[in-house]
């Protein structure tokens, strides 16, 4: 069964505002990181909370997606995981934060990261503004901590906080483009929605396993991280379930 087309309501202004706020949050995080205002432990905790929020959103996305079409959902998820893995193979694990990445590698990783998030935001907004807002708020929190790491890498290369903020925001520009493109595609072709939601799930899952969790474990330790991620994921799953309310 496919999701009914009537459920897909275009919300381009909502989408632009939400994804724009996520980009601005990345700029703020990079400026903070470049200004040496965040300790590694704080970044670790922020990353863990962002990972939990992403896990909760991923749960909400896949629940909605599976209700439409399990095969399309799984296909989208697998495709996203494979594509992101291929993209990471290009940047290498050196792009990961705790391995002291070069600024260029960190910016490249951030751009890849934002593409998956843009897809997830676009698909979530297609389901409904409330669901989109929950997802976007999650990504805003996440972007601050992730971009702080990027900011620290840029600082090491002598960039100022304002230059770091601009670089982080530019690296995140793809998030807005992907979000708008995803919304346009699913409005034009509603059958693509389970694929998009599944891809959002797979992409977020991959990113939290490949980037957020390893960095957080290194910065803080396993029990604290597991606790924070579980709680944050549970809260978002609870809120996300309410936000997508009318889903089949």
């Amino acid at each position: 069964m496919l999701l009914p087309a009537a459920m897909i309501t275009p919300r381009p202004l909502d989408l632009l505002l939400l994804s724009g706020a996520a980009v601005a949050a990345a700029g703020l995080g990079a400026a903070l990181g470049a200004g040496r205002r965040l300790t590694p432990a704080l970044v670790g905790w922020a990353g863990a909370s962002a990972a939990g929020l992403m896990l909760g959103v991923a749960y909400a996305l896949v629940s909605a997606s599976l209700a439409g079409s399990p095969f399309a959902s799984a296909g989208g998820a697998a495709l996203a995981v494979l594509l992101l893995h291929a993209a990471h193979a290009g940047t290498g694990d050196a792009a990961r934060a705790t391995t002291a990445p070069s600024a260029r590698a960190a910016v490249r990783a951030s751009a890849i990261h934002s593409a998956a998030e843009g897809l997830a935001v676009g698909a979530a907004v297609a389901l409904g503004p409330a669901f989109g807002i929950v997802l976007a708020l999650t990504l805003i929190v996440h972007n601050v901590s992730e971009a702080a790491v990027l900011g620290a890498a840029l600082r090491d290369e002598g960039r100022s906080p304002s230059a770091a903020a601009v670089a982080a925001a530019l690296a995140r520009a793809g998030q807005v483009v992907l979000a708008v493109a995803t919304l346009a595609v699913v409005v034009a072709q509603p059958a693509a929605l389970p694929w998009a939601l599944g891809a959002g799930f797979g992409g977020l899952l991959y990113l939290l396993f490949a980037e957020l969790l390893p960095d957080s474990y290194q910065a803080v330790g396993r029990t604290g991280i597991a606790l924070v991620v579980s709680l944050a994921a549970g809260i978002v799953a609870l809120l996300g379930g309410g936000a997508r309310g009318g889903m089949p």
Partner: protein
Amino acid sequence: VIVDGDVPRVFGYALLTALATGLGALPFAFVRDLSPRAMATANAIAAGLMLGASIGLLEEGERVSAGATFVGALLGVGFVLLTQHLLGGREPEFGALRGADARRVLLVLVVMTVHSFAEGVAVGVSFGGGGALAAAITVAIAVHNIPEGVAISAVLRAQGASLVACAGWSILSSLPQPLMAVPAFLFVQRFSALLPYGLGFAAGAMVFLVLEELLPEAYAHERATRIALVTGLTATAMLLFQRTI
């Protein structure tokens, strides 16, 4: 509808998960040690399966009551934390057990046995969500048990234990699963309003185990991108499996 007459089936499914632990001894018929990377991949597969299974449990609970499922998940996390607290800081010594005496080997078995209580509860309450969900949870926990069996066997083999002894002790460590599954199943059958709490409990405990045990151990010996690939794909496969069986 699942009724009390299904108790043998519940016991049988949970017994299968315990027997799967014994499969962890098999690799030692061919090699003396498994590479850390192979163990990391096995942990990543188990993490993906358990995560996918947990999503199924949460969805099932959410259909009845999202709030109760959330509370149950918190209780599940709390249960694992309490278990670990009662065990003290002994679990981190696991890696140093190679060549240790029998008392320390026994400690490993105790640790493994205690934490398998929550997994038994997961199998039992999953029957409240239907046969398909129960089958999926059983597969996830059975697969998760294999690396645990490998870990136990690695310790015992280093002490000169036979393959049969390795398999036997591994299975013994998971016997709480059939023993806990039946009471958990009967409990949620008698008090059906508690089903979402039970489903949430099992999901919370499994997600916490994934985050606290499986993933950190996987990251320690394999690249994060490969862990993400394996875990992401197996979680997706598990979700599809649950929806199509």
